[in-house]
């Protein structure tokens, strides 16, 4: 049974921003709840092989609704505390411009953590096509050659074609030709891209930002459909993490009087395709979903998804 952990931050639910320390506390709760280990370090060692670790962000909307820099900072700190060297931590996305606009400081070399886009000079995409089913792409050399494992750090939001933009869809930012894969609600392409060897073999963990969730008119930013959800969603099953995210989007749409994604003509059917390919579990009823709510003093109690 796949496990998904949702950690809510009460302050964030009220509209407060979350500090690096706040995210660190959330990650501790989430990682230990996910793995059953007693420390976040033990959890990370259980989830990740040794070697360089990538953190694939989603910076499409710049500062407005991208993977929060403090969340990335917190995770990098947790990794370093667990024994990873700074040079083994690689924050990345498709372009330097997007990373910078979202508030990240670029650093492609030196002795510290790395932060770079695939468009960094000398990086780019690999030379060999990876094909799965109907989809063929070149994959970022960061994923192919730089890291041995990847933590997928998407932003939970609606997608006007795919229905859901979560972890699997975020991997479109790892390939050279995402524009070719948006027909038929991105199905089966989202699933097939995640089946491509460098992506499937590297992705070990999804940490999805859901502090503010845009439930309609995504993936571009639209303030009218943005609500505070105050959460981070974690799972080592990429399909399960997305399935819980989809449930959140669906309930927010219903609560706000919008038709379901199915009625809107954009069901996230790629999740079923992904499950069929063995990427993970897409049936909500068989998932173990643990919802934790963290109060202002750091105390944690069980909560509800919505």
């Amino acid at each position, binding site marked *: 049974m796949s496990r998904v952990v949702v950690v809510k931050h009460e302050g964030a639910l009220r509209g407060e921003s979350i500090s690096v320390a706040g995210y660190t506390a959330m990650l501790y709760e989430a990682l230990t709840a996910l793995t059953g280990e007693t420390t976040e370090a033990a959890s990370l060692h259980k989830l990740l092989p040794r070697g360089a670790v990538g953190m694939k962000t989603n910076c499409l909307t710049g500062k407005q609704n991208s993977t929060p820099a403090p969340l990335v900072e917190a995770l990098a700190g947790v990794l370093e505390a667990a024994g990873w060297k700074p040079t083994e931590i690689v924050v990345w996305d498709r372009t330097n411009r997007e990373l910078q606009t979202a508030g990240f400081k670029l650093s492609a070399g030196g002795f510290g953590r790395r932060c770079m886009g695939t*468009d960094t000079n000398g990086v780019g*995409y690999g030379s060999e096509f990876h094909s799965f089913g109907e989809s063929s792409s070149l994959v970022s050399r960061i994923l192919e050659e730089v890291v041995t494992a990847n933590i997928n750090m998407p932003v939970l939001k609606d997608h006007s074609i795919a229905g859901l933009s979560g972890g699997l869809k975020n991997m479109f930012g790892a390939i*050279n*030709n995402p*524009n070719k894969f948006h027909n038929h609600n991105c199905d089966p392409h989202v699933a097939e891209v995640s089946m491509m060897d460098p992506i499937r073999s590297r992705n070990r963990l999804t940490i999805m930002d859901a502090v503010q969730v845009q439930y309609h008119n995504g993936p571009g930013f639209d303030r009218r459909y943005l609500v505070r959800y105050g959460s981070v969603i974690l799972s080592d099953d990429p399909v399960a993490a997305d399935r819980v995210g989809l449930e959140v989007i669906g309930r927010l749409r219903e609560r706000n009087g919008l038709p379901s994604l199915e009625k809107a003509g954009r069901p996230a059917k790629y999740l079923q395709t992904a499950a069929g390919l063995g990427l993970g579990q897409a049936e909500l009823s068989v998932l173990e979903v643990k919802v934790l709510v963290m109060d202002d003093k750091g105390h944690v109690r069980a909560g509800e998804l919505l």
Partner: protein
Amino acid sequence: MDRRLFLKCLGCSGAAAAAAHTYLWPEFLGGIQNAWAFGDDAKLSQVEARYYKKLDEGGIECELCPRHCRITDLERGYCGVRENRGDVYHTLVYGRPCSINIDPIEKKPLNHFYPGTTAFSLATAGCNVNCKFCQNWEISQARPEQIDNVELSPQGVIDICKERGVPTIAYTYSEPVIFYEYMYDIAALGHRNSIRSVMITGGYIEPKPLNDIFPHLDAIKVDLKSFREDYYHTIVNGELKPVLEALVQIKKAGVWLEIVYLVVPTLNDSDAEFTDLARWIKAELGVDTPVHFSRFHPQYLLRHLPSTPVTTLERAWEICRAEGLQFVYLGNVPGHAAESTYCPQCGEVLIERRGYRVTLRALKGNRCGHCNHILPGLF
């Protein structure tokens, strides 16, 4: 790159001179190299696109090609070069070619269009289909920020043509439909300066933009990739029907038209398909429409297939000739007799070709010097 250096590069032929510009102008050097080097976003144009409508529910719908991509903010169409920014659709490649060259017109190929002349040939990144056999996939399947581009305005193109004495501009290599605005403005300016324009296209375009550009074009070559809808779906990632409609539209408009059919072993090389193709061309376009059967070589996503046997191309040639087509050519087979143009009335060699070497034989003006038969095309 400044314009002086650019012009110098365009004229260079020595290896030492060329080496400095391998990065920018690989086509000029005989092959695409280092195509996945990156430019930066500042090199993208932000010119409003034509042929789109804003949707009531937000987002836009592109009306340039039959895909009709519906695109929300910050997303791009299938072509990868047109982006919605705040519900204003932009072309990112206006004035940003990634490949330029001066080619023989026969390379397009156009065999009935001022033979032996040259064409200033240019392309931007992007394409509205994704052919598994594409020989220029490094640029056609790239987004513009993924490859190097230069700034070159329509006036800049015209200036180069004048300085170099090049009579024709060819929009080619990738798919000019996706850089329509740039092509349109160059072609219109070209005609005002007595410079011709030819469009080398897959023909996957909506009737309105196609019709609008006719007055500024002198010839169109269409890659008809198959005569089967399922091939278009599985190998091309497009549709056959709109392409056939575009062919008929071009013919009716009186713009000079030639067709290329890339013969891919086992996929589009049956007698039945060649026969259906020939009969359709005869019925809808006329027997005087030139058809080029081109040889496939393993490329891109079809590297597992062999090159097309020349005998297969000859079989296509024989079938089309038997069906009555008058001008059937074989391409990518240098030295083959079917590269040349023969008078359909007396059989005399009118234009002899060996690769891109062209010799006018019996052609006098636009007539056969032997029997006075008129050769269709522009000469």
